[in-house]
């Protein structure tokens, strides 16, 4: 803010020794770039800590209800599209990889490499959301979205489809509890998707700046910290995938 800087110039005259060497992107209240980078990095990690706890509430709920309503969770989990889920896991891991490469390109000042890595990450992020949207659509068609539109009929009277044998039927009260599973499914993947959307928004801003030649002067804290966020979102999915898609696939 301008008010602080106005004084900074005069006040800093007292210890102007190493001041001339400061790069322009060093903010006035830090002693050195190293301090600034470590500070922002630590701040990002603390933010991720809050994210762990944010998802923690839903993981707690998941574990409790999975133990209570295991048959319903198995049956409901089997209605998820394993192909799309696995593909999405691959997509997200790949996007994490391209993001890590992007950080490396920024560190080693490869402009083209950074831009292409970010483009790849951006596209993979969109692909993930696209596949997710297709899965959501399928759930909607099957009346598996919780709320007034929900119906557990398919679990009480399962039908064989596409050459697959019919699932074991559930008792009506247990079948009703598939709604708890789908509530958690939509809450968890929805929150995850929301984080993806926010991430893609920030990513496109970063991409825009990178095409203009930003992050080539050693000031790459933004890229690094965004990378941390993106990898964190990846980690959440790494847990969501087996917990939601892979419950006793054999039965």
């Amino acid at each position, binding site marked *: 803010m301008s008010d602080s800087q106005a004084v900074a110039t005069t006040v800093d005259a007292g210890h102007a020794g190493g001041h001339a060497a400061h790069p322009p992107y060093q903010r006035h209240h830090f002693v050195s770039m190293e301090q600034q980078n*470590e500070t922002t990095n630590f701040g990002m990690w603390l933010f991720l800590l809050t994210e762990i706890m944010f998802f*923690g509430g839903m993981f707690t709920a998941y574990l409790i209800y999975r133990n209570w309503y295991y048959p319903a969770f198995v049956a409901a989990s089997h209605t998820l599209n394993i192909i799309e889920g696995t593909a999405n896991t691959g997509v997200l891991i790949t996007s994490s990889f391209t993001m890590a490469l992007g950080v490396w390109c920024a560190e080693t000042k490869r402009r083209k490499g950074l831009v292409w890595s970010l483009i790849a990450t951006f596209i993979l992020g969109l692909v993930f959301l696209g596949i997710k949207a297709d899965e959501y659509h399928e759930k909607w068609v099957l009346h598996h979205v919780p709320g007034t539109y929900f119906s557990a009929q398919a679990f009480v009277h399962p039908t064989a489809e596409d050459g697959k044998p019919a699932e074991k039927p559930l008792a009506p009260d247990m079948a009703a509890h598939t709604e708890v599973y789908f509530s958690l499914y939509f809450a968890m993947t929805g929150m995850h998707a929301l984080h993806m959307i926010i991430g893609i928004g920030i990513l496109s801003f970063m991409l825009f700046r990178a095409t203009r030649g930003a992050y080539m002067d050693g000031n790459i804290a933004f890229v690094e910290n965004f990378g941390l966020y993106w990898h*964190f979102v990846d980690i959440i999915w790494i847990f969501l995938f087996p917990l939601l898609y892979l419950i006793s696939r054999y039965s």
Partner: protein
Amino acid sequence: MADLQTEHHGHEPEQHSEHKVVSPKVYGVIFLILLVGTALTVWASYWDVGPWNAAIALGIACTKATLVVLFFMHVKYSSKLTKLTVGAGLFTFLILVGMSLADYFTRAWGQW
């Protein structure tokens, strides 16, 4: 920890990490392990090994997550403070999950 060096530049007596550039080769190897892990966890879920299914799935997920944290997120090369921060998050998460579940499991034991 060769990459950790104690650096006293006045304002901060804690350990600082020199900024380490991780090579793309490392990223590539981790990436492949993650893909293999994904395939493995899907494959494993089609085998009936009773309660071990959940354990295997969670074990693979934890391994994958650890690799991402250590290498993609550079925690292996980071300061003790970062490691402590990750540990603190994990610890509190486990309290939330563990102590809540403790209530649910002991409810089944009934009255005294």
